[in-house]
Structure formats: structure tokens, C-alpha cells
């Protein structure tokens, strides 16, 4: 295709001063987008309650069922809640980033919000940065709430806060990318929750989130999928165990890259594709 007019000035100005000015503008736009994404979320009372109530409820119920101090081989030498507090924190991050993002994007596409957004000059990467920041924040609050409930059942605070933060950032980014990838593959908002659950439900079970898995074959398979490495990263951050982190984080990151590639190639803004 031919372009008969000169490219816009902003894109061709090479001088450094202009470059930093554009950079500052971009940064301000990122902040602007994060702010309005937050505003949209916190204004919706239902969304807020369900996002934060569910993990609290689940960890409370698990505490009531599996509470108690005795350590056992079944939980790899931990107490029940020492095991479940990190894994349920991991499930809540998975839900907030992967599940919620896939559903939110499909719904916004179906209602035409994404198409309308596409008509504005907001760059796509800034839009997605706003969503990622939102998911990261929700994930951090979820982890905080689950840790809080865990302490009520006598679970010690995480041993490695930095490791926890690293796992959260990497996990949130990867699961968001996978959420965007799934949203790129579903056609309608109605089918999004079904596909999200279809993937998430078995994955969570074979990854040991709701009960420890002692089958080697299953653990090998789950270790190559994104949820188990994330569980293990959080477990390690809580217990202070070290040594077996990096390979798992690499697997998690690789899945994130895959999700991002699918999203970049297949993402649609228009509810009615050609």
C-alpha cells in the first residue's frame, strides 16, 4: 500500500530533546491509563467484593479443614496450612491475572469498548500496561489477604519477601499474557468463562494447588506447565527453601512469552471480525 503524505512529524524527529519529551509524555500517558483503569475497577462494588472475597473464603475454609501444626510427609514436611497458604495465594493470582483478564477483555471486545478505544490514539501497549498494573495490584492484595488469613492459622510470614515479589511480578506478567492470549482465541464473551475454566481447572488440580501430588509422572508433566512452577516459587518464598527456583521461573516465563506471542498475532479489537 502506498502512503501519499509525509509521515507525521512526531515519528520522524530524531533529536534527543524531543525524544525525552515524547518519553515523558508516554510515561504520563501510562500513569493516566493506570489511574482510569483503577477508577473503573474500584467504582464497581460487585467486582471489588468478588475479587477479594473468594480467596479469603477459600483459604479460610481450607484452614478450618486442614488446620493444625503437625507437619507431615504428605505436605512435603510442612503443616497443612504451611502448604495451602502459598498454593491458594498462587491460585488467587492466577484467577486475578489469567482468568479475570481473559473475561474482561472478551467482554470489552463484545460490547465494542475495545473498538471504540482503537479509534483513539492510545497505543495498544499502554492500554495493556494499564491492565497489567491492575492485575499486579489485585494479585498483591490477594496474596496479602491470604497471608493474613494464614497467620490466623499459625502460618509464619514469608521468609523471602523479595522472592515473593519476584514470583508475583513474573507470575502476574505471564498469567496476564496467557489471559490476553486466551482472549485472542475466543470469539464471544459468553464462551470466555467456559474456556478459561476448561484450562484452569485441571491445571490447578494436577499442579497440587488443592492437594499435594505424589505421582512422579504427573509432577513431571505439571512441571512443564505454568501453574506448578508458580506454586513452587511461592512455596519457596514462604518457607525459605532455596535452590530449585530458576528452572521453574524459566518455564513460567516461557509460557508468558507464548501467551504474549499469541496475543500480539491474534488479538482482535473488533467484535465482528472479517
Amino acid at each position, binding site marked *: *500500500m502506498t*502512503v501519499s503524505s509525509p509521515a507525521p512529524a512526531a515519528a520522524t524527529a530524531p533529536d534527543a530533546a524531543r525524544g525525552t519529551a515524547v518519553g515523558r509524555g508516554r510515561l504520563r*500517558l501510562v500513569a493516566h491509563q493506570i489511574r482510569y483503569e483503577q477508577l473503573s475497577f474500584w467504582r464497581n462494588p460487585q467486582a471489588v467484593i468478588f475479587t477479594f472475597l473468594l480467596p479469603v473464603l477459600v483459604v479460610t475454609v481450607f484452614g478450618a479443614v486442614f488446620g493444625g501444626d503437625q507437619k507431615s510427609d504428605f505436605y512435603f514436611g510442612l503443616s497443612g496450612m504451611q502448604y495451602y497458604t502459598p498454593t491458594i495465594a498462587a491460585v488467587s493470582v492466577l484467577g486475578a491475572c489469567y482468568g479475570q483478564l481473559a473475561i474482561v477483555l472478551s467482554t470489552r471486545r463484545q460490547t465494542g469498548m475495545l473498538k471504540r478505544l*482503537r479509534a483513539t490514539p492510545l*497505543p495498544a501497549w499502554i492500554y495493556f500496561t494499564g491492565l497489567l498494573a491492575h492485575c499486579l495490584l489485585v494479585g498483591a492484595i490477594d496474596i496479602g489477604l491470604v497471608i493474613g488469613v494464614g497467620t490466623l492459622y499459625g502460618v509464619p510470614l514469608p521468609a523471602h519477601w523479595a522472592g515473593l515479589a519476584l514470583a508475583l511480578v513474573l507470575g502476574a506478567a505471564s498469567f496476564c499474557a496467557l489471559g490476553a492470549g486466551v482472549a485472542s482465541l475466543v470469539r464471544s464473551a459468553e464462551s470466555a468463562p467456559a474456556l478459561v475454566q476448561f484450562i484452569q481447572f485441571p491445571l490447578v488440580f494436577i499442579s497440587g494447588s488443592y492437594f499435594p501430588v505424589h505421582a512422579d509422572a504427573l509432577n513431571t508433566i505439571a512441571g512443564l506447565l505454568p501453574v506448578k512452577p508458580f506454586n513452587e516459587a511461592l512455596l519457596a518464598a514462604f518457607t525459605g527453601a532455596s535452590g530449585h527456583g530458576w528452572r521453574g521461573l524459566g518455564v513460567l516465563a516461557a509460557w508468558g512469552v507464548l501467551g504474549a506471542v499469541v496475543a500480539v498475532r491474534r488479538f482482535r479489537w473488533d467484535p465482528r471480525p472479517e
Partner: protein
Amino acid sequence: MTAVVVEGLRKAYGSRDVLLGIDFAVTEGEIFALLGPNGAGKTTTLEILEGFRGRDEGRVEVLGMDPRSSAVAHELRERVGIVLQDTAVEPYLSVRETIARDAGYYRAPRDVDGVIELVGLREKRRAKVKDLSGGQKRRLDLALGVVGNPSLLFLDEPTTGFDPSARRSAWELVRDLRDSGTTIVLTTHYMDEVQALADSVTVIADGRIVDSGTPATLGGRDKAFARIRFELPPGTGVLDLPLPTAPPVVDGMVHLEVREPTAVLHSLTGWALERGTTLGRLTVERPSLEDVYLEITRSFETGEAAQSQQSQQSAAVRGRRRKRSRT
């Protein structure tokens, strides 16, 4: 200068041809109305111009740029405002927040409160979007379309669902935008809207352009015969009228069609005054824009009805994959 150029534009969805080679140009600073029956290809044309859809053949230039070129996509979005057919905004933000959010996306936006004033939502600026009426939401759409201070604005059926007074003020707004230099491309089903707003009109049917002109000249309206009608005064016959031939009388009303009514009216009214009588229920009419529009598109409407019935059937067979017609 021309704001939009379309030459030989063709588009098919699968085996179904939607645009069969259309040409038109939109002059900078005018209000251009694109009309046509449902399914004629209006929305497809608009979406191609807006960059949402690709084309199969033909040349398209919007503000001198190709809407499908990713190199100019950002610049086009800066300078083109779009009001889509469906309202789609965050329900929990207030009117002011919604407009302020979008204003932040543009290089040189209009003043947010000025835009709120412009679309008449000042009383509602703190209201949440979900609490607005349909017409108010549409005005918010309009606000989002103009907040970037575009040089070209696409309006896809902008006043559907408005009450009459809201429509008048929307027209006022569109005229003001035009007068301040914005080029406007409009689709609508309301002929009074076209009459009130459009500087030029293009009618599209079955993927082709079937007529174009101004609201006054479309369909040869300016050259059409004037229709004079009046009641035959009591006690007179058609042969008493000062006319070369006896006109038809339907239900006691005389029907006359003349190219230029001045002289005929003069002799008819003179004749009535001389006799001390009146021409009851006298009207002089030219065909309305709606009349000529219906005439132009009549043959296509029937074809379209048959086609859409057919496509509904095949859609049912396919099993509800797509909800709406895309054309």
C-alpha cells in the same frame, strides 16, 4: 482540498460482494451524508475509511493517508473522530471522567468542560454513565468523538433514539463543528436530518452508488414537476378552469403537475378572485427528499429484502455464529 477520496472500492465477505466498485469524494469542511437501505454497504464503507476493515480493491485516502497503513495509523487516530453506531463506555465512570480519560489520549484535545457544555451534559457531568438515558449516552458518544478536536468526524447514525429537541441540538452541534472547520461524514436513516445538515449526499444501494448531489438536487428533485392541488370551487366544473386541458380530479381535488408553477398559479388565483370564490386546501409541492430517496432506492429495497431473508436462513443453518449483519 478533499478530505476523503474513494476510487473503485470493492469489498467482499467470503463469496458475498458488499461493495462493487464505488467512487466518491468528500470536500474539506462539508457535511457529507452517505445514505442507503440497510445492507447497502454504508457501514462497510465507513469501517474501511475508519481503518477497521481492509479492502479488496480500490484507492482510499483519508486526510491524504491510507487508513490501512500502520505507519500512519497513530496520526489518523489523532485527527479523525469516530462515533460508532453502538454506545460502549465504562458504566461506572462519571461523564466527566469518561471524557477526561479520552482527552488524555490526544495530543491536543479540546477542553473537557467545554466539550461537556457543547453536548449539553453539564447537569449530568457527575452522573455515572450507567445512570444516563439512551439519548444522554449518545451525546456522551458524540463528546468522545469530538474531544480530540478532529479535522474529520465520522458519525454513524448519530441521533438514533433522540427525542426531537435533542435532535435539534445535536444538529446545531454538528453545524457548529462544520462551521469551525471539521469535515463530517454522516450516515442516517432520517431524511429531515439530511435535509437539515448535509451539504452533499451520496446514495448507495447493493454495493453501488446510485445517485449523488445536494439535498436540493438529489434525484433531479430541483427539476421535478411541481404538484398543485386544490378543491374545485362549488358550482364550477373542470372545464371552467383557465387551463389548456382539463386536469384530473380525485376526490374533489384537482391535481396539476407543472414545471414552473408561477404563471399557472397566477391565472388560477386570478380566476377564483374574479368569481368571488376561493381555491380551498390549495397546496404547491415539490417531491420531498424522502420521496426521491424512496424512489431511487425502491428497486434495491426489494432485492435486499429477499437477500436478507436468504442470509437469515443460511445463518440459522450455520448456527448463530454472527449476531449482526456487518454491512
